[in-house]
């Protein structure tokens, strides 16, 4: 039970990062982006490549942080990957979604996002191989925090929790203290009003993609540290991300963060009573439940 709670919070915090970007785009551009989860895979794999490049450049960078399987070069790689993934997200928007927005309705963007997801997923498979890999092959030992109730925790997992917390606090400060943060919040609450208050829609859309891509990249690295890298890691997460965004109410950044934790916890706790094979279906049940009971999400405003 305690172990399930811990695992749920861990997975939930990763989902939160992914869901924040998803909910922003889903609200500002009015479409469910099914390729958002592929940004998670891209971030994770970009980090893998850059880590190898940095390590080749200087062996010193390969030294591990105390207790962790995370090296300095992996951290640097993640920082660079976060930027690259954000830019990649903005480029995909520029090449595909922006043109479809101008020509057709939001559902055409949903349609295209499925196609883009399929392409990215399989290009990753071609480039990196279909097998799962790890950032490093050392076996990370779990520390027994408590034996009854059982709680096993790896140092890497604590690192993930700290990292996600750090990212979310920074995001909160950005959104609540800076005028660019206000502007982003404003554009997602009411695009017309934001524009007549001098906010440029196109530049905020770009910012939302950059931010969404960067957060997804961090989520990808955390997920890969906790599990492994695989070309289908994004696809396996996409429904949970939507569940988190819907639970939190579309457009609410704080809702998405909480929604991620709720979905992570619910999935983890549900496995105490449901056979493991049904795990992929749990987010769907959560979505259906929320849509029937509270279509605006738990924290969303009636609009």
């Amino acid at each position, binding site marked *: 039970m305690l172990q399930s709670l811990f695992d749920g919070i861990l997975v939930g915090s990763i989902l939160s990062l992914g869901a924040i970007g998803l909910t922003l785009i889903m609200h500002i551009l009015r479409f469910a982006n099914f390729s958002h989860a592929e940004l998670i895979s891209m971030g994770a794999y970009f980090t893998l490549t850059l880590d190898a490049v940095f390590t080749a450049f200087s062996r010193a960078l390969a030294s591990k942080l105390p207790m962790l399987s995370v090296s300095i070069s992996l951290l640097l790689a993640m920082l660079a990957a976060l930027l690259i993934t954000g830019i990649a997200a903005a480029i995909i928007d520029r090449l595909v979604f922006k043109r479809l927005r101008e020509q*057709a309705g939001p559902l055409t963007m*949903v*349609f295209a996002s499925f196609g*883009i997801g399929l392409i990215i997923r399989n290009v990753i498979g071609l480039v990196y191989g279909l097998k799962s890999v790890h950032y490093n092959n050392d076996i990370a030992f779990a520390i027994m925090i408590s034996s009854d109730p059982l709680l096993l925790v790896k140092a890497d997992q604590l690192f993930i929790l700290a990292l996600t917390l750090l990212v979310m606090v920074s995001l909160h400060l950005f959104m609540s203290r800076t005028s660019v943060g206000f502007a982003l919040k404003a554009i997602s609450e009411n*695009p017309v009003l934001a524009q007549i208050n001098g906010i440029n829609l196109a530049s905020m859309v770009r910012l939302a993609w950059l931010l969404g891509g960067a957060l997804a990249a961090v989520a990808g690295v955390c997920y890969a540290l906790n599990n492994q890298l695989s070309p289908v890691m994004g696809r396996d997460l996409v429904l949970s991300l939507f569940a988190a965004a*819907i639970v939190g109410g*579309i457009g609410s950044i704080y809702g998405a963060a909480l929604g991620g934790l709720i979905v992570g916890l619910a999935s983890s706790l549900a496995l105490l009573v449901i056979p493991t094979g049904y795990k992929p*279906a749990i987010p769907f049940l959560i*979505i259906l439940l929320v*849509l029937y009971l509270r279509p605006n999400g738990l924290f969303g405003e009636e609009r």
Partner: protein
Amino acid sequence: MIGIISYLAFFLTIALILAIAVLGLNLQWGHTGLFNGGIVAFFGAGAYGMVLLGGPDRVDGLGGFSLSYPLALLGGIALSGLLALIVGLATTRLRHDYLAIATFGVAIAMESLMRNATWLTGGATGLRGFERPLEAFVGNAFAYNLLFMFFVLLCVSLVYLFLETLVHSPFGRLLRAVRENERAARSLGKSPAAVRLTAFVIGAMLMGLSGALYATFYAFISPQDLAPILTFQIWAMLIVGGSGNNKGAVVGTLVVWGAWVGSGWLLTAIAPTHLQLYTGSIQYILVGSIIVFSLLWRPRGLLPEKLSTHSYPLPEPGAPNQQTGSAS
């Protein structure tokens, strides 16, 4: 010679079976503007439903009611319809992309069910031992396959005629009104949610028919037949053919299925042994590219929709300064 005819009959049978699902999607997406993200689930419901109802007795699980074939077929279709009703009731009143999310979720839930609920679906091995109708009576396998092809052709024709009648009826105009402009539809005194739900359920039942015929043809069904790529293939068929045009849907099916089978054959022939594993990835990229590039450059497909009625404009379609506050 008989080999080629036999292969052609096989190719056409599968293509025609898929054409029924594409026609069902055309009713949902092409005519009504509903995005179905989990076609494979409705296809699978029809397939499993049919085999469970019409198949032989099972020692290790539910099913095997050995119903007569027409009843089993109808049962499979009804199961797809029921599934669509459950999803549709939750979503057709809400934001339009919620249907996409919910249907995508249905497909994933369906896959979990197929793989794990051994008592119901036979798990990974699927359901075997289905007796194809009249097979013993015909005897000759080649003749039977030809006969089955004509049966499928008959089904496609009936579905086609049904849909053509439907879309040219007042209800068809209502569908397009809902697709183009919610307010216009409401002003006709109809509930857009009810119209959307009806179209969604009918479309899903056609996908169920397609799945049931597929399972009949192979005489068994397993999770391997219901891979997520099927949904993408059916989308590609519709968008290539021209959404909103039933003739286009059938033509698109033949073209894309031909390209799929052809590319698979070609890749297997030219790829070195150690790369054979990746031919699937290349084919998937192909399907994804067909979808994205068609949407960008040829959104109206090979045979564009012919609009007989006045087309209502979308309210501010994708305009950058669109007021997005109105959740429907």
